[in-house]
């Protein structure tokens, strides 16, 4: 049974949470998550810096060495870009489905698909953001035990832009967590009002 808009629910949350308000809240959160993930992808993919070092001086002419830092030199950043791209596509598809989906009839199949896809994409963006975060930490601090030098003192703007992409991705991760939680909560609220679920107990024989 669908919930009428504005009807008060007897839940532990204890405030008025109508179906229309929850739908628009979820849609707004998905839009924010899409924007954050897309921003993270774009900033990481376009992240590049070229720098010329003077290595030696022969006579009076300096010997220059040009080094470029690109995102695809590091596998973790490639994974980060792909993961955030996929998550932004997922959120876009979910928004489209929410706005235009009432034309298609797939009610029984809808919930497992949305829940599973949301959780898979949460896992994906979590993996991408954390892998890139620890690679960035390694680039910023180096590792004295493994004799790996830091690179952020030489390529400052590259590291700064990477940090911006990471912040956007962590924002997308927090939003995806919230979206997963709210999406299950909404399904629970919509279905519980007709069954009075907090009184039901499935009893198994001893």
């Amino acid at each position, binding site marked *: 049974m669908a919930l009428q808009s504005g009807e008060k629910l007897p839940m*532990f949350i204890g405030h008025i949470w109508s179906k229309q308000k929850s739908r628009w809240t979820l849609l707004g959160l998905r839009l924010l998550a899409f924007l954050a993930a897309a921003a993270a992808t774009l900033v990481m993919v376009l992240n590049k810096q070229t720098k010329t070092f003077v290595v030696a001086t022969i006579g009076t002419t300096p010997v220059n060495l040009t080094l470029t*830092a690109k995102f695809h*030199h*590091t*596998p*973790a950043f490639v*994974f980060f870009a792909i993961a955030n791209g996929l998550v932004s596509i997922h959120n876009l598809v979910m928004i489209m489905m929410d706005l235009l989906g009432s034309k298609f009839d797939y009610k029984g199949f809808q*919930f*497992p698909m949305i*829940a*599973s896809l949301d*959780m*898979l994409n*949460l*896992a994906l963006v*979590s*993996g*991408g*953001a*954390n*892998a*890139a*975060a*620890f*690679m960035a*930490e*390694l*680039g910023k601090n180096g*590792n004295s*035990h*493994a*004799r*790996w*030098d830091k*690179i952020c003192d030489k390529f400052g703007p590259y590291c700064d832009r990477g940090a911006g992409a990471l912040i956007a991705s962590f924002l997308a991760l927090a939003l995806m*967590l919230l979206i*997963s*939680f709210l999406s*299950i*909560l909404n*399904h*629970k609220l919509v*279905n*519980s009002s007709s*069954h*009075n*679920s*907090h*009184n*039901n*107990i*499935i*009893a*198994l*024989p*001893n």
Partner: protein
Amino acid sequence: MEIKEANVRAKAPNKTDKFVLATQICLRIAATATAMAATWVIFTANQTVEVLGMSFDARYSYSPAFKFFAYANAIAFGFSLMSLFFMFFARHALTATIYFFFFLHDLMMMSLVLSGLAAGTAIGMVARDGNGHTGWIKICDRFEKFCDKVTVSMALSYVAVVCLLVLTVMSAGKSRQI
């Protein structure tokens, strides 16, 4: 409406319910066991190598990524053990609300372990293959035993993540039905 409520309350537990509950408990045991194994292996993975009179050693605490991976697995083991005991002892009185809290727990744990895995995998790849562009040399040809143990620990952690993912989807499904 009263007749409908009475019918729902008096629903006899069928084989499907028992099968789902048994699957949940088995998956929780699997997730707890693999998380514990991964934690144990990474905490005891260390190796000392002598080169030219100087000794170099490798342990998990020398890298922030491996430290995060170890602590994430330890926390996931603790919470999974608690949830296993809770589900086992409360198995006759599981409502939809309790399944919702199981869903939240499984979601958090899966996210945490996956974050640790991603960090460990990223740094592990640098350790195993090096990075020619930044001048980072690989260390796994010197510290073979250490690298093998870290690989084993991560493989176990991947199994734990898959179990937790299936648990999350199952808990979400059960939390809306009843």
